């Protein structure tokens, strides 16, 4: 029973989060561009996206005459299901994880590749040249950027020697059974806090985080890698023909995907549900702020801050060109992430032993 309850709560949370994220994105973009953004509906325009979604649900559901009707219907379902399936292995607190399987992160990488197929289905079934071009670009981009993302993750899991996300979280805080070293020289197993996070456990892991973050932006089709849906050249890319609820589902999947990759980044690099407050001298802050409810608060705060960073980047950087995008991936990020994997092996063998 608890399983069904939690999955429904999670679905509700993602829906509300997506609405608030759209509002936040509009507000932040307005502030960056020196505008005010939505102000009319509700206090600070808070109800704007709720109004938008009710309008969207009432819209006529149009299927193009020449579209492949079954695939056109199946695509948004497949895309959203794939993203939502990813949340199954994310640990929310020391005591709560939906499925504590020992292949957690590997499962997540496989789930992302299912989403690719859904995008392709949407683009092809629409029978529209813009949609098809958008989905081809999207796939080329997502498949390419999966490699540096996977290698950056590999650099991290080589140090932890487990694929289980709950165990990865455990090894970054005061609940760890192994000894944790701050940059390899200062033992912080009992101090915890941000000293024990992955990015502070070895000097090269911050670069691994940057590579993962760039790759995750590309996997979410966010600016500066939003060429699949580039408004100024492809209208809207793979979801140009979608209306009403189906468009809503695709939009929800996009924001859920942003949240999912931020959750993975929070778990792998920023200690997951571990507190940022360390035990220093007589202030045992880490002991106080570790627990089921604190865990949920910390991981959500970390993930939402990373989503905020994604939004910030969207309104700051211009779009990449296709060849620049591929050059960045294949000639910069992949060699760099291979070096990081090698460095992880050296660190594990010679520094931590």
């Amino acid at each position, binding site marked *: 029973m608890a399983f069904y309850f939690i999955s429904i709560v999670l679905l509700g949370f993602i829906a509300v989060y997506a609405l608030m994220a759209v509002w936040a994105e509009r507000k932040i973009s307005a502030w960056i561009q020196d505008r005010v953004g939505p102000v009319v509906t509700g206090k600070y325009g808070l109800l704007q996206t709720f109004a938008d979604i009710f309008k969207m649900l009432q819209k006529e559901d149009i299927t193009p005459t020449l579209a*492949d009707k079954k*695939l056109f219907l*199946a695509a948004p379902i497949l895309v959203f299901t794939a993203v939502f399936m990813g949340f199954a292995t994310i640990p929310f607190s020391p005591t709560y994880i939906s499925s504590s*399987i*020992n*292949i957690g992160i*590997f*499962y997540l*990488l*496989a789930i*992302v*590749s*299912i989403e*690719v*197929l859904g995008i*392709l*289905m949407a683009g*092809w079934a629409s029978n529209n040249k813009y949609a*098809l071009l958008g989905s*081809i670009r999207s*796939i080329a981009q997502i*498949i390419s950027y*999966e490699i540096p993302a996977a290698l950056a993750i590999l650099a991290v899991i080589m140090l932890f020697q487990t*694929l289980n996300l709950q165990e990865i979280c455990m090894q970054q805080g005061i609940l760890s059974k192994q000894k944790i070293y701050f940059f390899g020289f200062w033992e912080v197993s009992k101090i915890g806090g941000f000293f024990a996070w992955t990015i502070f456990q070895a000097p090269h892991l911050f670069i691994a985080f940057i590579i993962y973050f760039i790759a995750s932006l590309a996997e979410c089709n966010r600016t500066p890698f939003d060429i699949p849906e580039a408004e100024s050249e492809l209208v809207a890319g793979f979801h140009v023909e979608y209306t009403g609820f189906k468009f809503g589902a695709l939009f929800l999947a996009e924001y859920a995907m942003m949240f999912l990759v931020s959750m993975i980044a929070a778990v792998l690099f920023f200690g997951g549900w571990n507190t940022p407050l360390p035990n220093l001298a007589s202030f045992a802050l880490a002991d106080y702020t570790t627990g089921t409810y604190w865990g949920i608060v910390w991981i959500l705060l970390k993930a939402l801050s990373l989503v905020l960073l994604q939004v910030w980047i969207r309104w700051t950087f211009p779009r990449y060109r296709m060849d620049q995008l591929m050059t960045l991936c294949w000639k910069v990020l992949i060699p760099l992430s291979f070096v990081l994997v090698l460095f992880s092996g050296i660190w594990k063998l010679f520094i931590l032993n």
Partner: protein
Amino acid sequence: MIKLVFYLFAFLAIAAALYAVSTKQIIRSVFAMFACFFAISGLLVFAQSDFIAIAHLMIYVGGILVVMVFGIMLSQKASLSNVVLQKKSISLHQYLALLACIALFVILMYFFNLYAPNTPIHYVGSDIQILGIALLTKYLLPFELVSLLLLAAFIFTAMVTRKNKI
């Protein structure tokens, strides 16, 4: 409940595979193959080999299927529209193919019965550690040979697709 899910996956795998070979639209058959692969990886979870299940999903859905879709999209438009079947009657080579399929099935079932253990297999826990150690000790040579083969294929592809010949 669990038995129901198992039969659902089994039904989905067979139905999707049959649809994939019988449909006239190539792109639909690719998506039916996706459903088939997905159901097979579900069945692998029932066989208590979850790592193989996810690896199956990753390799077939994330790799092979996407490459197939790319091939279809980049090929000529005639192949995207409905493929017209030339003949209604079954020709000789189709009979031969059917015969080969049945022969393969019989051989597989024979060896499966020959080597299948009589006692039920028990789940021993974290299978990735066992798998990793086995791959890097007992099966190191085949593992390295396969990776060498993949590297050769990789270099060959890069050579073939180069515009300026070296």
